[in-house]
């Protein structure tokens, strides 16, 4: 694998404006394939906005203007001919609060492949089974697949959301503070799950918990006021940060 191929996502000179606010300022970032990259920084630093650029979720908001390029593999996802539906199949997203649709567990997972045109019953059955197995939820829900997903605990619902994302066979999984609504044990489960996912997927996580970034990520990106201050391997960043602002933030002297 040559140097270029070990990066899955390459962000080039990305600027995002919301009305007259300059929210993301000249972002350049390479994200490694099959690894976990954590975006950290204080509230309002633009880390979630940056994450949402990667699957173009900012498109639906009025008054947002984006300049710059993001490459997924070799394709510029902001090119004019990008099929957003297909992009979102390749780049899945898990949100802050677990959002299980008020449907059955089965239907929740099946909703993702259905969007992309899978309707064959057996194929769907297989996707649901394998997705739930991969997130470690299968044993708990196998006998109640057709019961409402809303009866699951929050942690289980978040696992279900990950299963739903996996079900459309993405290449990248974006997680936007996936544990902030969860208890410590569920958080641990999700972190273990991320570790497993990183074997097959490129994982990008936004987190406000520095411990989580330190525990669970391979690379860390520290952002402040819409700029990337520092990025690098998580171990190095937390032991010997190069920038004093990074050091202040990770030691808690910043806020």
């Amino acid at each position, binding site marked *: 694998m040559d140097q270029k191929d070990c990066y899955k996502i390459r962000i080039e000179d990305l600027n995002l404006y919301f009305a007259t606010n300059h929210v993301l300022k000249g972002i350049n970032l390479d994200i490694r394939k099959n690894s976990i990259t954590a975006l950290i920084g204080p509230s309002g630093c633009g880390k979630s906005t940056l994450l949402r650029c990667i699957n173009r979720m900012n498109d639906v908001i009025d008054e947002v203007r984006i300049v710059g390029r993001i490459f997924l593999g070799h394709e510029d996802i902001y090119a004019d001919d990008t099929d957003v539906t297909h992009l979102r199949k390749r780049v899945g997203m898990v*949100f802050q609060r677990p959002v299980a649709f008020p449907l*059955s567990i*089965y239907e929740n997972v099946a909703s993702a492949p259905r969007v992309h045109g899978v309707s064959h019953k057996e194929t769907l059955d297989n996707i649901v089974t394998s997705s739930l197995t991969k997130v470690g939820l299968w044993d708990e829900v196998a006998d109640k697949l057709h019961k409402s997903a809303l009866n699951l605990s929050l942690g289980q619902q978040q696992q279900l959301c990950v299963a739903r994302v996996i079900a459309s066979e993405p290449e990248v999984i974006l997680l936007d503070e996936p544990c902030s609504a969860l208890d410590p044990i569920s958080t641990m489960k999700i972190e273990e799950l991320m570790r497993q996912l990183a074997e097959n997927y490129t994982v990008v996580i936004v987190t406000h918990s520095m411990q989580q970034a330190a525990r669970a990520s391979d690379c860390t990106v520290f952002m402040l006021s819409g700029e990337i201050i520092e990025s690098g391997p998580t171990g190095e960043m937390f032991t010997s940060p190069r920038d004093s602002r990074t050091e202040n933030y990770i030691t808690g002297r910043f806020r």
Partner: protein
Amino acid sequence: MKMTDRRITLLFTCITGLTILILVFIIGFIMVKGLPGLTLSFLLESPKEMGRTGGIFPAIVGTVLLTGMAVVIAAPVGVLTAVYLTEYTRDTWLPKIVRFGTESLAGIPSIIFGLFGFLFFVIYMDLGWSVLSGALTLSAMILPTIVRTSEEAIRAVPDAYREVSFALGSTRWQTVTSVVLPSAKPGIMTGVMLAVGRAIGETAAVIFTAGSSLRLPGTLLDSTRTLPVHFYILAREGISLENAYSTALVLILLILVINITAYAVMNRLANKGR
């Protein structure tokens, strides 16, 4: 503080009790008056001597037919209008006008709809006094209710659902059909049931448009008589007060049956998780 709390609780209990009492009294009164005449032959036979004797079978058929058709016409139109208003438009002048229009329409007395139906469907469209005229008029009458309640039900669907659905790659229409409408279904169903209740008990709009024929309608262009119209005529023209009460009782039972069935169906669907 504790005393006040207790007094307020007592007050509310009394008020609630009063509400239930009124309801029980009305239904009980009609049951007592109507139950003696309620036999199987009353349900299954055609009326004789203008309804003095015989049964009310044609009126039951007319009621079910008219209400059913009205709902089948109005429900899809109403729900799709609500989808358009909530999912496909921003807050511009168009949805505001539509919303204002539906609100105003919902407040119009039914006899105005009757008059409109008579002039437009019966005379202008030359449909005559018929099942079709009646059903179209009723559908226009219940449309605002369906639009309003569906719109509220759809608005109550959390935006997070839409966001997740878009993030999965869904188009707006896929989001509507696979996430928004299933989530809003209980609310929409309640609205449709309200509309059914309004349509089934309607007298003024129906008497103007479907007429009051006592015969079983053979085609959609035949005149028919619904249960409320039937007991209105029985009571008004002094034909048979006993039969009027029995007819009223049948109407109440019919509404009850429809409601129970609808909620049973809804619960089964909900338990399936969809």
